[in-house]
């Protein structure tokens, strides 16, 4: 039995006929399983949606309470029978509520990773590796040049810059859901005790993290009147704001950007970043290879961007690997980069 008997690709995305559900569909479908709340995975307009309670709450925050017809919360580890398939959600370590989805039929067990990382993240449940026969993995950073350093090291660089330039505001571009809160939490862990300022666009989601028990200390929303006064402070904002008019009102701002893309200089320079912080919410190359092996899967499907390198790597090891050129995710990344939202 092979993975293609369990999962197929439709224009809306990955589909499991035996359960009659799509996973992270890019168009409205009757029944969807959602891995996590990022907008390229979680879209509004589906019929029935099953996801973790946090992911459902995040979708409601973003799209309004009527983002779907019916919701079904699934706790981590709980097994739910859908059609002839046992479905369960397991921590992916990506953002709050993020999950890998495990699908088990009588003949095959497959795991769809969603977005995931193995590195430590104090703002969400850690990745739990699932053994399986077939693994559908993301490969956003699927090139051997992407090896993410310890995120605490990058935050230490940010604090060092604040020491060196106490007269300048430090603007940290970070994706609003997950990355922003992780950076804030790491700052707190490193002993940053001043208020952390945020752009209004990330207020709702940051409040939600705090309500969920992620203690971020004193967070303040920046108003127009505050901007000229924030010398020596850290301001977290959506990446697109870094080059926006908005940023110019701060005192001699340092443009920092927290993203795995910052590993490559040309990429950082292209965005006019002055302080690239290599902080990613995705697996890096080494963890990607290690995870693929550790699942024990003999069949690997690869999604999200740089598929070629990891497919080559798997095949060199005798694993059956296929790139899944799905529309809607890889493209989304590029568009979001252009629009300033490094949607990882």
């Amino acid at each position, binding site marked *: 039995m092979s993975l293609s008997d369990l999962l197929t690709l439709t224009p809306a995305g990955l589909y499991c006929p035996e359960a009659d559900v799509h996973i992270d569909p890019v168009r409205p479908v009757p029944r969807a399983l959602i891995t996590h709340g990022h907008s390229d995975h979680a879209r509004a307009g589906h019929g029935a949606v099953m996801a973790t309670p946090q992911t459902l709450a995040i979708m409601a925050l973003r799209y309004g309470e009527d983002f779907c017809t019916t919701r079904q919360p699934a706790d981590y580890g709980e097994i739910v029978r859908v059609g002839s398939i046992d479905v369960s959600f397991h921590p992916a370590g990506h953002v709050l509520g993020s999950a890998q989805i495990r699908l088990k039929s009588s003949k095959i067990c497959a795991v769809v990773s969603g977005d995931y990382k*193995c*590195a*430590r993240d104090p703002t969400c449940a850690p990745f739990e590796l699932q053994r399986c026969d077939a693994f559908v993995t993301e490969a956003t950073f699927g*090139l*051997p*040049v*992407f*090896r993410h*350093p*310890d995120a605490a090291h990058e935050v230490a*660089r940010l604090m060092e*810059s604040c020491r*060196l*330039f106490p007269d300048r505001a430090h603007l940290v571009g970070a994706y609003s859901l997950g990355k922003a809160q992780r950076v804030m939490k790491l700052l707190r862990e490193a002993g940053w005790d001043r208020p952390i300022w945020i752009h209004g666009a990330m207020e709702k989601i940051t409040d939600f993290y705090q309500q969920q028990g992620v203690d971020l200390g004193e967070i303040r929303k920046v108003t127009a009147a505050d901007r000229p006064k924030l010398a020596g402070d850290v301001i977290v904002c959506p990446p697109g704001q870094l080059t926006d008019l908005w940023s110019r009102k701060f005192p001699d701002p340092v443009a920092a950007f927290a993203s795995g893309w910052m*590993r*490559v*200089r*040309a990429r*950082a*320079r*292209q965005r006019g*970043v*002055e*302080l*690239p912080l290599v902080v990613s919410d995705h697996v890096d190359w*080494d963890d990607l290879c290690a995870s693929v092996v550790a699942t024990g899967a003999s069949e690997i499907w690869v999604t999200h961007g740089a598929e*070629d*390198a990891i497919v*080559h*790597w798997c095949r*060199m090891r005798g694993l059956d690997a296929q790139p899944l050129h799905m529309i809607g995710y890889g493209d989304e990344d590029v568009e979001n980069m252009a629009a300033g939202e490094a949607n990882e």
Partner: protein
Amino acid sequence: MNRFAELLDRLAYESSRNNKLRMMTDYFRRVEDPERGYALAAMTGALSFTHAKPGVVRALIAERTDPVLFDMSYDYVGDLSETVALMWPTPQRAHQDRRNAAPPTLSEVVHALEQAGKTDIPRLLADWLDDLDETGRWALLKLITGSLRIGVSARLAKTAVAALGDLQPNEIEEVWHGLEPPYIDLFAWVEGREPKPDARDPAPFRTPMLSHALEETDFRNLEPEDFVAEWKWDGIRVQAVTGVDATGRRVQRLYSRTGEDISNSFPDLVEAFSGEAFGELTIDGELLILRDGLVEPFSILQQRLNRKTVSTKLMTQYPAHIRAYDLLAENGEDLRPLTFVERRERLEKLVSRLAHDRLDLSPRVTFADWEALAAARRDPASAGAGADAEAIEGVMLKRRDSIYVPGRPKGLWYKWKRDPYNVDAVLMYAQRGHGKRSSFYSDFTFGVWRGEELVPVGKAYFGFTDQELLQLDKYVRNHTRNRFGPVREMDFSRDEGLVLEIAFEGLNRSTRHKSGVAMRFPRVSRIRWDKPAREADEIGALEALLKVTA
């Protein structure tokens, strides 16, 4: 090495000169000897590693990575050192503590490479790469392969050292040539712990005094009788320095205006000034090629520039000459506090006493009023320049009472160029040409300064010889910072970049261009290999012209 790597990394992303200075000064303040001294050496170009070639690096990475994955990665990253730095497999990587050995210090790297033979290099390098992190590996590879381009000039690094104490950069410059890495005595002096290092350099460089471009409106505020005029020669400005070292040996050096020692390109001049009679002098003047007493055009002088070795044939064919216009020091006496007229008198006496055929005096241009000077500028041949008129690009005005101030002080010296439609711009982007030029980068976009930033003001396709096109093409390939499709972005900043003298027919206002101006028929009239990017023109110079021509 890690702290140095971190500094280089930040410098590479920072565009403001002031912030770069703060980063460097902070580094020099917090890092101990001798580590900081080697860092200073690396940034001033005082280190070179002959055995560590890119080929060695390629071989090392090829042993350690899958070629398919390497090609995909190199393709994506676009830079060899960076690809290797990022891809280098570190032994037994664990998430928290992935390194077992302490990373090397910069001092260790420098010492080990000094002693290493060619065959030791691969092993040394591999061990270091194992122990460093990504940024450390990048900095190490850039450093040893000589491709460290971080937008920091030697001058800026010295300025950062000066800021450690309360010194002027020129004070560092004056002792610099007597010092060696790791500059322990320099730091001790700057930090006030020890006296000034013996300026052992018997022939030091002194920062030159520069002029401002004259604006038409300046005349209203200037009195002709306060000024002396000279021709502005179309050569390169040099400083010829002679002296005697501690052992009594005579030393002669020729410096470019940025303090680069160019003696090796002009052994004929160095030899000419080696006589006892030359004593200890610092002469400020123009380097020209003279044949049969006549000045050759700049294109002839170019045959002698940027050469590592000089043949006897070249020296006889194109004999170098100095046309002196100032005297900064004479036999232990610093003449810079004297007025221009006093210095000029000393210079005239000196030149006539030496009576050497490689040295003469830049003649004064006499004028009664500004109209007369304007006429001389328009037609130098009838104003005393005779057959040398072709080698004149305008007139210089120097206040009679001006003391010699290093840098570009206001209100003392002015240049008044002959062709009003000339601008010194920095090469920003290059693109391949068409037809028979399609394999060369021959379309050049250039810009001028607006504050700290360069704004593009035009594009040139003509004006250079085929020989110069080859040089420009090579420059473009070696100084690319970014690629956008067919366009290459050059490495430009206040401290890095190639200056092009652009001639053009006129100027229009333009809303299409970011700069607000559009040039008519711009062409490259000269490649200013000798001119630092920061001395290129300001947008104000073009805007002023816009008013005049409107």
